[in-house]
């Protein structure tokens, strides 16, 4: 049976039976001690350590008192495993059981050759613990190697280390035998306020975009021809967008921009066929129109010549449309053309991509493809634009 299986079996026995130290526990204690003794003669310390851990389970769960010899062999197995902190704990327990010369000498030896450290790295990169020189004594080497392994795995070590000089990442530390606890925390360096260079924009300058656009006002949630709440059918049409603003680079790649401008859409008027079919025209009949002004804030990522941007947009303006209402839509007439004019306030998001083609002084000229989606609460307005953008040129790379 493997050591781990034996521990599980022992744990199962302890869970399922009442807690008291009886003959079974005593017999198990004797068996484990004999096994430790036998294995120690062959320097089979892994086996000794496994048996000792079983003994600790017996002690903690079944109140079986361990003997001096148990602790003594346990200290030796911990030493072979490189767990110097366990060595110290077990020797202390051995000394409480029987303060022999050998255990007192060993404890004195540890006090005279080891010191307590508490080292932690909170740096992003991995750090290592390295002694200035590896000591001769194998137990000291094993203790250092165990601490090094823990530093690699967890970035920290707390416990005993052989006296001497070490490096922990970029820092040096000296462990003094029996001295004060050596504490060291590594953190990523942040320059002080004085050391920090004043913030400077990578670039800043005017920005302008112009180009044809196509806008589609979607169907409203409910079509209504009521006088106090016109919500005509959806419409769409080509138009143009023109914006001017300011763009600044927070870094070589990241920038922000603010733009205001005009967004217009123009559709066809009611067709002649529909007009003839209508019975009258109480409203002005003209082509469908959309005239809004917008404000756009966006962040921009510049990947060389390719610029990607996105951000919130808000528009306000007016729209004019005409339509032939269907029956049951509450229109003031039937089979007639109804024209509707109203205001629009729509918010949403806009973004796009631009490819810088040329530099014009401190500006770059780019072919841009923009799009957006906005809502006024009743319908969605989507649009797209192919344009030409002038914006501050990116700083030249060294």
């Amino acid at each position, binding site marked *: 049976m493997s050591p781990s299986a034996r521990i599980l079996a022992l744990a199962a026995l302890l869970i399922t039976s009442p807690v008291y130290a009886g003959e079974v526990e005593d017999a198990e204690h004797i068996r484990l001690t004999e096994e430790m*003794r036998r294995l*120690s*003669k*062959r*320097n089979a310390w892994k086996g000794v350590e496994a048996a000792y851990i079983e003994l600790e389970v017996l002690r903690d769960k079944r109140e079986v008192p361990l003997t*001096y*010899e148990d602790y*003594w*062999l346990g200290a*030796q197995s911990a*030493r*072979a495993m490189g767990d110097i902190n366990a060595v110290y704990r077990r020797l202390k327990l051995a000394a409480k059981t029987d303060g*022999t010369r*050998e255990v007192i*000498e*060993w404890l*004195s*030896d*540890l006090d005279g*050759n080891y010191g307590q450290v508490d080292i932690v790295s909170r740096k992003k990169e991995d750090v290592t613990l390295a002694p200035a*020189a*590896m*000591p*001769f*004594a*194998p*137990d000291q*080497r094993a203790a250092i190697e165990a601490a090094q392994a823990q530093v690699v795995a967890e970035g920290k070590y707390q416990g005993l280390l052989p006296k001497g000089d070490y490096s922990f990442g970029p820092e040096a530390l000296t462990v003094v035998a029996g001295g004060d606890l050596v504490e060291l925390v590594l953190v990523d360096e942040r320059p002080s306020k004085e050391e920090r260079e004043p913030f400077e924009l990578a670039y800043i300058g005017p920005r302008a975009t112009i180009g044809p656009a196509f806008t589609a006002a979607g169907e409203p949630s409910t079509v209504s021809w009521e006088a106090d709440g016109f919500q005509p059918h959806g419409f769409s049409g080509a138009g143009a967008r023109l914006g001017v603003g300011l763009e600044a680079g927070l870094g070589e790649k990241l920038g922000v921009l603010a733009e205001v401008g005009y967004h217009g859409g123009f559709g066809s008027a009611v067709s002649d066929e529909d007009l003839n079919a209508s019975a009258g025209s109480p409203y002005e009949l003209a082509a469908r129109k959309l005239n809004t002004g917008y404000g756009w804030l966006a962040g921009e990522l510049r990947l060389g010549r390719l610029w990607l941007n996105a951000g919130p947009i808000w528009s306000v303006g007016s729209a004019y449309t005409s339509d032939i209402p269907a029956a049951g839509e509450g229109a003031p007439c039937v089979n007639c053309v109804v024209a509707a004019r109203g205001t629009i306030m729509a918010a949403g998001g806009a973004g796009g991509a631009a490819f810088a083609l040329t530099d014009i002084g401190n500006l770059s000229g780019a072919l841009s493809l923009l799009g957006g989606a906005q809502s006024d609460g009743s319908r969605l307005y989507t649009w797209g634009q192919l344009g030409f953008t002038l914006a501050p040129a990116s700083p030249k790379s060294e």
Partner: protein
Amino acid sequence: MKFLPMLPFLLGTSALAGQVHVSEKGHAYNPHWSPDGQWIAFELNRFGDAVDLYVVKVSSGNAAVPVKVVIPGTTSSFSGRGSVVAHPVWHPEGTVIFEGSNAGGTQRLYYWAPGGQSAAELLTSAQIGGDLTWPSLSADGTTLAFVSDSAGSGDLFLWSQNTNTISDTFTSPDAEAAPRFAADGKTLAFSRKNRGTEDLFLYQGGEVKPLKGGNGDQTRPMWVDDQVVYFTNERGEGHWDIAVTDSAGAQRTILAREVRLPMRAGPAITPDGRSVVYTMSDPEQGDRLMVTTLDGTKTVEVPTGLVACGEPDLVGAGGKVYAAFTALPNATDDPNSASDFRQLHILDVTGKLP
């Protein structure tokens, strides 16, 4: 008035050296001083099936109570019989390295520091298997040479403290033993079984070169600058001499004849590196330490007041020179001692060396 004529006799023959008392019965062998002269590690052969290792604190030539070094599985609290703990060598930092094995187990290398933790395996079986013997350290202690039979009959391996790695030196079908580092920490002198006898070789720059062969055994080399001092029995079995040769093996001088061969140690060198110290195989001359300069021009005798002296090792400490050696008490002069066992003794030999 009858007492007075006896006084010069007692002064002249009683033991001059301090004895290191060990409560357990057995013969003391193979003493080795720590580099700072504050400790001696030595073996106690309890016969039957066990050799113990003791370490004793020494201050101004006076020894404290020796401490028995035990390996895992044979602690003083629950000792097992049959363990062999022997062949100590000192690390410059004060740790003693030695061979150890439990009954029926493999011979491994252990380390222990006086007044410190319990002894532990120096090199794990995961690092290198087999029986590990003949530990030898470079002067700075960062490289350990030893012999392992993991690959056959016993090859030399090197362990680096800095990298904690083991490298083999070369492969050979013969058994190598007794490696010793030169002062450069890279060149090794060692002996190799060669057609039934031992010859000396050098391992230098990754190559093996013959150093000294001949009749009988040439063994246990010790470096003194660029010279190698060693034992040879070229005159026949049981007749051991001490010789010195240069590192090319060209010049060879016999420094002493009919010496007593130590249990495991090489020739003992004085701290100033000028002389070799030895004892004689002739029981009639077993009451003294012999010191011969390496140029062979001068030999002095240092009386001990003891008999059957052997296994000398010297150290310089506190401006003095001390010799550790094993000997039997002179039963003629000290009938109360009646000891059948060789004991460890310490003798101040300051000013007595050539």
